[in-house]
């Protein structure tokens, strides 16, 4: 009995020492080495792919989606979309920081609603109606069948930086009207900011909303 207790103790002690040594290797040396090489070889990417606007101000990351809202008015609970800019996908799953309230970190996440969930059906229906209403102009009527799925659904992270090229094209008439540009000008802008599949088949075609809006701002400034 004593022998087996002593034996168990010895094995546990060996286990603890193994854990500490492997923690040093995998939890300290390895991540530091990767940080060192990454910071030297890919400093921009390793630090979050930040992008600057024409004036050199950092306006976000090309990988993290943003909202393009009007300032919150008195009595309003949620800010409304600033329709001058291209709009991203909905982000109903994005959470507010609840654990450690000294920060307001963006909490990534999805809605996790199922296809037959009443909330999701309402969100999608409302979003579709809003997309049709917002994007129809005097000379251009959006049909329900024109609205792509990504325009009315929330992404997995809630931070999707992209929209589909179809959703970008849908917004062209509205954006042109609000910025007093021609449809052809904005069309050209969207075409220039549409990325195809990597190597022709990996991933999906997409438009980076932040980069597109930065280019739009430049175009408007140039008149």
């Amino acid at each position, binding site marked *: 009995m004593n022998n087996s207790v002593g034996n*168990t103790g010895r094995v546990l002690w*060996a*286990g603890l020492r*193994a*854990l500490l*040594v*492997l923690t040093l*290797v*995998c*939890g*300290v040396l390895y*991540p530091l*080495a*990767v*940080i060192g090489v*990454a910071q030297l*070889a*890919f400093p921009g990417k*390793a*630090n*979050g792919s930040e992008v600057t606007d024409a004036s050199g101000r950092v*306006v*976000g*990351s090309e*990988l*993290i989606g*943003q909202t393009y809202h009007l300032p919150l008015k008195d009595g309003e609970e949620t800010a409304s979309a*600033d329709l001058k*800019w291209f709009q991203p996908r909905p982000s109903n799953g994005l959470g507010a920081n609840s*654990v*450690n309230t*000294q*920060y307001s*970190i963006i*909490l*990534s*996440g*999805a*809605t*996790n*609603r*199922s*296809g*037959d*969930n009443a909330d999701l*059906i309402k969100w999608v229906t409302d979003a579709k109606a809003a997309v049709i209403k917002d994007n129809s102009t005097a000379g251009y009527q959006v049909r329900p069948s024109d609205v792509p*799925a990504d325009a009315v*659904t929330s*992404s*997995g*992270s*809630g931070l*999707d930086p*992209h929209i589909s090229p179809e959703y970008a094209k849908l917004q062209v008439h509205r954006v042109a009207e609000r910025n007093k540009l021609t449809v052809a000008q904005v069309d050209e802008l969207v075409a220039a900011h549409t990325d195809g*599949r990597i190597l022709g*088949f*990996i*991933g*999906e075609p*997409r438009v980076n909303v932040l980069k597109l809006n930065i280019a739009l701002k430049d175009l408007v400034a140039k008149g």
Partner: protein
Amino acid sequence: MSPVLAGVLQLLALLVALGLSYRPLGDYMAKVYSSEKHYKPEKWVYKAVGANPSVEMRWPAYLRGVLAFSAVSVLFLYLLQRVQGSLPGSLGFVSIDPDQAFNTAASFVANTNWQSYYGEQAMGHVVQTGGLAVQNFVSAAVGMAVAVALVRGFARSRTGELGNFWADLVRGVVRILLPISVIGALVLVACGAIQNFSGIHEVGQFTGGAQQWNGGAVASQEVIKELGTNGGGYFNANSAHPFENPNGLSNLFEIYLILLIPFALTRTFGRMVGSLKQGYAILGTMAVIWLGFTALMMWTEFSHHGPAFDIAGGAMEGKETRFGIGGSSIFAVATTLTSTGAVNSFHSSYTGFGGGITMLGMQLGEIAPGGVGSGLYGMLIMAVIAVFIAGLMVGRTPEYLGKKIGTREIKFAACYILVTPALVLGFTAASFVLDTPANSMTNSGAHGFSEILYAYTSGANNNGSAFAGLNADTQWFNSTIGIAMLLGRFLPMVFVLALAGSLAEQTPVPETAGTLRTEKPLFTGLLVGTIMIITGLTYFPALALGPLAEGLAA
């Protein structure tokens, strides 16, 4: 190019990449676990551990090593979270509550990586990088060690010795997981994954104001999270977060990492038992199930049945634009047919049948190709059962790889396959009998049932993905899922090692004309059938109440 065609081409590219690495990696791993040589840095480690790596262990000693190392790991990780608030480098995050700290410690040590916490607002650098990421390495290496011990049980005769646990553990980390991780992490950074120690900081926004980000050693953790089939994300959104999985290429690369070692281990198995063909038969079984599941998933997601998806015109809820339906479906199947549980899209918002496929993948026991190590030993247990069933049909004592499958062996195999269903179905039933657990559900009806069934399926099978609508940060779920994860990981290991010991003691029986040819495609077919029948009989009633009911109604 249509999205469907692009999805199929991505699957083909994945097949080619996995095919190219299969032989070199499988042979290399066989060498790693058979070599007599200890490298200099490894000798330092053994010295620090105080273990002689050349001493052979019988199964009880090997098991003691596994359990002692894992027990110490749980305790260490638990304490690390409990004192987080007083540690430097914790970004001001407070200590984790006892029930959640237990759940998380059990989860990462059991290679599950179920997360009831929100990564970016709960865990600082020390816990993430020095605690959780370390378990990503070592829990994977433990799984591989146990698988190799079972393979040695088949390969060796008239001994009982299964190798040395400390040597297998250290070699798995140092010679296999670390080198691939270093290269893989840099590939991910090159794609755009972050790797820094910036902590919480503000970044300007286009329309003014600022966003608050939490930056850390993400790429180095992301790569081992996939390679070691762990799955615990740095961020709450896991591999859907652009900082973890920035583009279509990184997405395909991460799926490749998930499947890399589990598939290649069948080559290692073939090498070590002296018949590559036996390895191919196991590989064939895994590949058939994996490809079949992927095809089904793509079909149901592209055809998007369900009220909300019909209105939206596509099942894009919970999916990222850059991956699309194809890249998301391939990932979802890979992560649930292995013990990974990382997600690049949220399974709760898949179609009814799609959600069912992810659940069924886990319920098969995660063996196609399964977790690193656990996939191989799980599949070999199924092979033992298949051989036994075939033996019953022709009235012969069954044999596999020259070893008799007698009463003792079949008892161990039977106990193995009973553990997880008992945990999954028992805890799911208990959750519905009690009053409060059901309050955690976000969705109601069939999908609400699925949320809880998914949680225990994921926990007991050591997957870690979720129908994340379930609020699992309650004392009930933290405790019971924690227990399910530990029992679901370590009880089967007891039976695997006992079986290995029993096999290694046997004298091999010579092959005769009546021996079942387990290297032939016929056996692969028998094995697929056995897996489907056993899982189907066990889980069909529960699946009928959840995903099948939802899918048929849509």
